[in-house]
Every structure is written in C-alpha cells, then in structure tokens.
C-alpha cells in the first residue's frame, strides 16, 4: 500500500515555528512513528531524495513519518553558519514531540544517516529505538576528512578554471559555512554507547577507521550493506545518494520490530 502524495503535509513547528518539517501520515492507522534525522551540510542535500523514498515506503507500511530540517539547515530558519550540534539535538527532541502530536503515537523510532545518526544517538533518551546509517562516532576524524576535502576542492580543475586562494575556501565545508563553535563541537565528539536498541547499518569503505568498537554490543546490532557509500568522494559531491538496499534494510527491520 502507498500513501497519496497529497496527504504529505509541509509545516513549520517548534517553539517559534522555526523548524520545517514534512509529515507523511501512515496509509493505515499508525502502529509506530519514525523520525528521519537528516545529515548536515552537503550530505543533507545528497540524501534528500533517499529520505523522501524511505519516508514514503514506511508510510505505505503503516508508519507515520516526519522529516525535518535542523535550525540553520534546509528550509528551517537560520543561516547555515548558525548550525549548532546542541541545537540539532534539541531540534530532534522537538521534532519527536511534534511527531507524537501528529501521529498520536508515543513509540518513536529515529533513523539518521552520518551526523544525522550521531544526533539521533545523542537524543536517544527520548526515543524508543534507533536505526543509524554510517553514523559519525569519532568527530575529530570527520573534521579532518572534511578539512581535507575542502582543501582539495580549492584546487579541483573539474570545478575551477584557476585554483582558488586559501582564504576563499576557509571556514566552510563543501558549500556550507562552518562556525568555530560547530567545528569545536564536532572535533570533541565521541559518542557514548547507545542506551536504546540500535541497528547500525554499515556501508563505510573497508578502509574506514574506528568502525563500531565504541558501541555497546548488548543493545546494538550491526548489519553490513553490500555496496560502500561514497560519502567522501569530491567528484561525487553533488551527486545524490540513493540506496534501495538501505531502504529495504530499514523497512524490513522496522516491520520485524513492530
């Protein structure tokens, strides 16, 4: 069963109506509700289509779904330089409350890719369970990777006819301004083991460092997706990330755990 697109409802919510959301009501009375936490920066744009496909799939399977944008991202209020990790966690909790109100369901599962997964893990106390896709557990490695990509970008002959000055590329990651505050928050990010049942979907390249050692095996299940996702490939920085295996894995897991 699928939901009719016109049932999807765009809205603003939160204390000052600053957060944008798109609510996908369930095709049948909702058994559970799923909050989709987006990644940050360019990964947010690259994952937009996939999040929409996932939301429509889950809604068709009887789950109410809310997609939303953190303050300073997407269609929410605030400038890109205003993105703040603590505010993202607070926005996630506000979005969970909004989803409870919209769906009439208290059982909220959160899904998040990359930093969206990390943010969901930081907000886990208010959630029933999590599905996270290649979450960022070690923020310092993430910062180092983004800095390297940004430095490479300034000299990318596929993008610029002449190399750009270091001052032109400073203070931003792949198109988005990054404040010193956010950089500092990410550099010190070390995620603690999740306290709620968590499924980790792993599609990082086999060369990626750290993996999932930091997670508590007692409440974490790890499932590997066959194809590696090219998160950090400059040549694909503006190419959408699509993954039917991911959608199948998430919907299958949520169906099985109703």
């Amino acid at each position, binding site marked *: 069963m699928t939901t009719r697109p016109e049932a999807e409802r765009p809205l603003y919510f939160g204390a000052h109506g600053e957060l944008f959301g798109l609510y996908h009501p369930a095709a049948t009375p909702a058994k559970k509700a799923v909050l989709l936490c987006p990644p940050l920066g360019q990964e947010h744009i690259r994952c937009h289509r996939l999040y929409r496909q996932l939301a429509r799939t889950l809604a068709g399977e009887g789950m109410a779904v809310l997609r939303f944008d953190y303050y300073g991202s997407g269609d929410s209020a605030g400038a890109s330089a205003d993105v703040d990790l603590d505010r993202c966690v607070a926005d996630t909790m506000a979005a969970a409350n909004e989803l409870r109100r919209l769906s009439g369901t208290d059982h909220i599962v959160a899904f998040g890719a990359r930093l969206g997964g990390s943010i969901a893990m930081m907000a886990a106390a208010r959630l029933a369970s999590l599905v996270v896709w290649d979450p960022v557990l070690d923020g310092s490695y993430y910062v180092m990777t983004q800095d390297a990509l940004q430095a490479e970008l300034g000299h990318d002959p596929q993008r610029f006819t002449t190399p750009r000055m270091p001052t032109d590329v400073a203070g931003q990651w*792949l198109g988005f301004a990054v404040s010193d505050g956010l950089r500092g928050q990410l550099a010190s990010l070390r995620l603690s083991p999740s306290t709620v049942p968590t499924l980790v979907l792993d599609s990082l390249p086999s060369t990626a460092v750290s993996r999932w050692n930091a997670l508590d095996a007692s409440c974490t299940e790890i499932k590997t997706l066959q194809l590696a996702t090219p998160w950090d490939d400059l040549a694909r920085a503006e190419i959408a990330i699509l993954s039917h295996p991911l959608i199948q894995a998430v919907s299958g897991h949520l169906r099985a755990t109703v």
Partner: protein
Amino acid sequence: MQERAFRFGRARHMIGIAGVPEQRSETPGVIVLNAGLVHRIGPFRLHVELARRLNARGYPTLRFDLSTVGDSAASDESQTREQQVCADVDDAISLLGEQAGCTRFVVIGLCSGAQNAHTVARTDPKVAGVIFLDGYAYRTLGYKLRRYLPKLFNPTSWRRALTQRQRSAEVVAGEPVFSVAPLPMAVVRKDLAGMLARGMKLCLIYSGGISNYFNHARQFRECFGRVVDHPGISTHFFAETDHTYILTGDRRRLIDTIEHWINQQFPVVNTGASS
C-alpha cells in the same frame, strides 16, 4: 517575517516555501526554480539565502519544487515537459500572487532552471523579468580561438588534454547522462529579442563553471548579437566561480549582484499596507 510552507498546484502536488514581507509594496514577486534535481533549497542552500535576502529588501518570494522534483509529485497529466513546466510555474505565480498581492513576477533559474525560465518567459505575460544563471550559450568561433589557440603551442596542455580525454571517456562510460537538447542559437536569440520587445528585463549571469562552452564576457555578444546592446538586458561573467557557487564568498557575490539588479530594475515602492 516568517516563511510559510504550502502544498499547492492544480493537482495539489507541489511543495513550496513563500516568504512574504510584512510591508506590502508594488514590487514583483520572485519565483525561484529548481536547479537540476536539487530540491527547492538550491545548491548549497543558494535559493534559501537568495530568497531571504530579497525578502529583507521587500520582495515576496516563492521557492518550490517542480512536478516530480524534490518533494513534489507528478500532476498525472499527459503533457510535454514544456507544458508541464509552464503549468507548474503558472501555479506558483498564482500562489505567490494570492499570498503577496503581486501581479508581475521575476523568474530565476540556474542551469536547467534557466532553460525552464526561458520556456516560461517566451509566453507568460505576467513575467516581467528573468535572471538566467548559466543559461543558453554556444561554442562560438571566439570561444574556440580563446580556448584552443593558446594550447596549440603548449606541450603541457597537449599532455593534459590527452589524459583528460582518457578520464572523461571513463566517466562517460561509467555514469549515465540525462540532458535536454538545447534550443538552437538563432531561436534563443529571437526569443530574447521578443522578450525585450515586450518590455521584459533580462539579466544573464554566467560562471566559469561552464568553461566547456562559455569562456569570456564577449561571448554574450557572439551568441546573441545586438540583443545584448538593448538597455533592458544586463550581462555578467564570473570567470573564477564554479557552476553551482560552492564557495560562500562566490555565493554572496552572486546574491549581491542579483539583489542590485532587481532593485535597479524593480525598485521597492511601499504602499503602506501590511499583510
């Protein structure tokens, strides 16, 4: 000012965000079209930053997703692509007109968005201005001389050209490419002349990111002839920027240029009423 989210359109199939300044004025509304398949926020949130800057200046805006792009669904009509784009933009114009009371509109589009803006501006009398970001352009003789003549005598260029050819062949083999055939140059030239004759204001802003077919400010004239001498047309070439304005400083400069042009062509005259 707070933005508002809408589901709208003849099949209630499209999603858009309207920004309507509190102070009513007789300015045109600004419609921002999708750039390729990127949803309505635009590449690196360009459309959000642009819309909010124009709202602060007093211009109502609507950024939205065309049928089947971003969060918008299909309209389930049997239409050509051009008919669908015109109908979508007409729906967007109706929505912004209802929300802001404006009767004239400026349409902005980047890349395929510029092509769609061109399609709409050919026929829609409510369109008073168009901003084409990396719109139609053609490899003129001047382009070829500027591109290839200096390389003829440079061994490094020969070496690079050979390796790049090999690399681009690999990309073509690996990645499917979907594109719409551009209109012929003579047709575009005639269309632009027709738009100007109808009193429309046009702004063409091209970037260094399309250096595979556009490489100098002079090329506007090489492509479009004496049309570019018309006082209603303005041209800008940002040679150092990329196609989607990935650097924040480049994006700020683009938005400054657009804001300046709109304010020059369509100055804000407040009517004193609040919405």
